[in-house]
């Protein structure tokens, strides 16, 4: 009887201790988001579905950029490049290139693709 009670107690103590460890190491805890998204996702969906009024979308994403800046947060992967694409549609090739370079600067992983896109647009000129 005594042994059983001590068994239950020690198991319980172990379980509580383990729970604390698991919580501290992040099995349950949720980390903070890495990026400030704004309405970028619905902008992507809208563009893909064919709602292509670039001026409105540009304004909206420039606002997201401003909001991120004022909150001290970073904008997500692909957002600068998408913004560049929208500027390209309005004929602003300077801002197309500028935003593509911003994507590369923030995310060097994009380098080869950005090179490819810039080469393509130079060919089209």
């Amino acid at each position: 009887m005594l042994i059983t009670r001590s068994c239950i107690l020690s198991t319980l103590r172990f379980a509580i201790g383990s729970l604390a460890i698991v919580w501290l190491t992040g099995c349950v805890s949720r980390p903070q988001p890495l990026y400030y998204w704004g309405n970028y996702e619905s902008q992507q969906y809208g563009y893909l579905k064919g709602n292509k009024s670039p001026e409105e979308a540009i304004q909206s994403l420039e606002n997201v950029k401003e909001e991120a800046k004022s909150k001290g947060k970073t904008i997500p992967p692909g957002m600068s490049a998408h913004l560049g694409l929208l500027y390209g549609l309005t004929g602003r090739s300077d801002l197309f290139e500028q935003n593509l370079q911003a994507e590369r600067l923030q995310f060097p992983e994009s380098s080869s693709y950005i090179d490819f896109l810039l080469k393509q647009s130079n060919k089209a000129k």
Partner: protein
Amino acid sequence: MKKLFTKPVGLCSLLAISLLLGGCATQKPYDYTAFKESRPASILVLPPVNNSPDINATYSMLSRSTIPLAESGYYVYPVTLVDETFKQNGLTTPADIHSVPIAKLREIFGADAALYINVKQYGTTYAVIASETRVTAEGKLVDLRSGSTLWAGSATASSAEGSNNSGGGLVGLLVRAAIRQIIETVSDQGHTIAAQTSVRLLSAGRPNGILYGPRSPMYQKDGTPPGR
């Protein structure tokens, strides 16, 4: 007396440890050997192949894929530009895009890995008692340098999850079903549910899910079964 005491305690701690291990990962653990050898930093999401009757499924899932992957620590290629690049090269259907040789994908995008998604179910099933919107998708992550499959999984989400069917009797049920049907068709409910499906399919830190990427503070801290 001493002997009598130590033996059960040993058994107890064994029991406690097995309880702990069982609680965190109940499914058979995924084999992450290839994933850990590859450790991709960037993921190219290809437009998903759609096996559902709803034409919105491809672009809905495509636009929903960036958030979970980027928040898991990966560089995700801008899905809109990627889609345009394929179109400019004459590839207009997801099936065509999924059959592009990996060497070509690597050459153009420079991505470490490509994600192939198949949407199995997308949309609302109408029924008298309860209509349901469900989105089910499968994903496969392929290393573009070696061609090996790093991870594969599937996920589903439904509008009927956690819905309370008690109270109000049959009439209450019917009214709720009718109202839900209207809401679900008018507001592209599939796209709402797709967000949940995508998070379940593509977030790191879930049982048998993808591992965290280099931009996450959790990078290299996961995928090891506890106790090893």
